[in-house]
């Protein structure tokens, strides 16, 4: 039989090692007030396990992955009691016995200012498909107070990804418009200004970015063409560097739009050029770090370079890219495992490509000494994965976070730069130990 608990009892239980599970969407967990609750966010310590994921055959695997185990005491809460009830039954079926349901989140927890809530500090920049749909429908969604917006489907030399189905009204943008195909770094201020103006973007335009994850295969000629959502976040970084004041990323990319069942368009939407970007580029130069500064950061006690590459790249087994021959890592950089290879970010994403629960990322980073008190520059091979990790840190409100734009490509192109290969000696340097899943 399922047991309900009161707010007082929940507070008591929180002193024990109970596992609190938040069934609401990732957006509600992050801070969006989807049911007009008084305060957005979640109960401190709660794990995010959206009801949507119970549609997946492998749901229980996600549960175990979050270290929610059969012997744990579990408290489930969400917006609707029937949803909590449904999930509690699933847990019961999976062999979990100690389950409570808390049904007073909206009417007691969120209304009582004395009870704590946690939220992702910059949650408003990570939007849901519902939010984008409301924007497109002219409904002035929550946390939007602008009169001009543009939805951008980002891709790398893959207009077919856009033309085969995109969010209605979205224009397409090739990542090469913003990064140079020679260095893969951000383009010059003049080039960025021209590209942004050609796409109808000014510093005051709200830009909503997303991409399409199309199962990248490292053996393909252009694997990045299938890793569109990492590319979209790369574009978000460059736009913020340039000076676009309100950049939003559709959480989960096109997958979330499809999952929500909204209309998909195949129209080739024409771009409406604007006369002037209106802001001197770069408005936020501190967001990007180049090699000379990266070298200073390695030597500084107050800063860290964060290597967002895969383990095989980190130990020098592979370069990660078919156009980079050098294998190895930058000595002194702290490793923050991206996932399987140069075109995947599994360690930073949920299984539906939404961003991973930010507390989990923060905890993994902290174990490796990646903390918000330092100036951090995230990098990878050419900037995509580094940008996605950076975006996570920025959403968390970390004050001094940048992308080391050159990354391994630029570093390894200079034969004078040192590099390391092999498995690091953890005993001598705790800071480089492997983190991740």
């Amino acid at each position, binding site marked *: 039989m399922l047991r309900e608990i009161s707010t007082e009892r929940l507070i008591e239980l929180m002193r024990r090692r109970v596992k609190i599970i938040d069934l609401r969407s990732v957006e509600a967990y992050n801070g969006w007030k989807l049911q007009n609750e008084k305060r957005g966010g979640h109960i401190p310590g709660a794990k995010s396990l959206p009801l949507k*994921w119970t*549609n*997946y*055959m*492998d*749901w*229980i*695997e*996600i549960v175990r992955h979050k270290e929610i185990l059969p012997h744990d005491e579990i408290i489930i809460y969400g917006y609707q009691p029937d949803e909590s009830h449904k999930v509690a039954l*699933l847990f019961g*079926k*999976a062999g979990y016995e100690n389950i409570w349901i808390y049904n007073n989140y909206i009417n007691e927890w969120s209304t009582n200012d004395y009870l704590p809530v946690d939220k992702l500090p910059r949650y408003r920049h990570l939007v849901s498909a519902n939010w984008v749909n409301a924007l497109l429908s002219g409904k002035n969604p929550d946390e939007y107070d602008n009169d001009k917006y543009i939805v951008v489907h980002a891709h790398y030399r893959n207009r077919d990804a856009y033309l085969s189905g995109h969010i209605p009204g979205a224009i397409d943008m090739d990542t090469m418009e913003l990064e140079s195909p020679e260095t893969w770094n951000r383009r010059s201020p003049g080039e960025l200004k021209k590209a942004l103006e050609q796409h109808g973007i000014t510093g005051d335009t709200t830009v909503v970015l997303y991409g399409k*994850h199309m*199962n*990248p*295969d*490292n*053996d393909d000629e252009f694997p990045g063409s299938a890793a569109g959502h990492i590319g979209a976040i790369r574009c978000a970084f460059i736009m913020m560097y340039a000076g676009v004041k309100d950049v939003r990323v559709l959480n989960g990319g096109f*997958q979330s739009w499809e999952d929500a069942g909204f209309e998909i368009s195949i129209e080739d939407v024409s771009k409406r050029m604007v006369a002037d970007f209106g802001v001197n580029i770069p408005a936020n130069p501190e967001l990007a770090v180049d090699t000379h500064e990266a070298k200073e950061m390695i030597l500084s006690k107050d800063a860290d370079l964060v290597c967002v590459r895969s383990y095989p790249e980190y130990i020098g087994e592979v370069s990660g890219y078919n156009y980079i021959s050098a294998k190895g890592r930058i000595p002194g950089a702290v490793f923050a495992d991206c*996932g*399987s*290879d140069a075109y*995947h970010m*599994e360690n930073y*994403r949920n*299984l*539906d*490509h939404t961003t991973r629960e930010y507390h989990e990322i923060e905890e993994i980073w902290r174990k490796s000494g990646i903390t918000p008190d330092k100036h951090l520059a995230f990098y990878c091979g050419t900037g995509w994965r580094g940008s996605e990790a950076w975006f996570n840190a920025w959403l968390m409100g970390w004050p001094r976070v940048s992308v080391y734009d050159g990354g391994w490509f630029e570093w390894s192109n200079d034969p004078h730069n040192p590099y390391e290969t092999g498995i690091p000696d953890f005993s001598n340097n705790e800071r480089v130990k492997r983190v991740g899943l």
Partner: protein
Amino acid sequence: MDINDIQDQIIDEFASLEDRFEKYELLIKHGMQMPAMDKKYKTDRYAVKGCQSRLWIASEVIDGRMIFHADSDSEIVRGMAAVVLKVVNNQSPDQVTKADLYFIYEIGLRNHLSPVRANGLASIVKRIYELAHYSVTQDQERNFS
């Protein structure tokens, strides 16, 4: 049995189950029943890229029939590989290249897996076809030489 008979058998097996979690358990069971893969295949050469978990698939042709071997460090990926291999094992390379693996849709593997796992399944199927195509090509080259 031909490929479609085996597919239909698997569809019946999964259809008898109540919900998708029971299907998940059955998938895991298939994975546990799959013969262990020889260590010699667990190298980069046989690794399937684009799958979140580590996965290896190798094949050989014995008496004109394809024998596939697979393993993964993930239970569910191993299970997915096991059901696909059950369908394509002991078939000729030509039959495998032409196979329409409709059972994947019928048993809900395509629609009820999380997107990342669904991508893993796509990688498995892609590799199976690649290996079969390779065997067909090799066979044709032998016939011409």
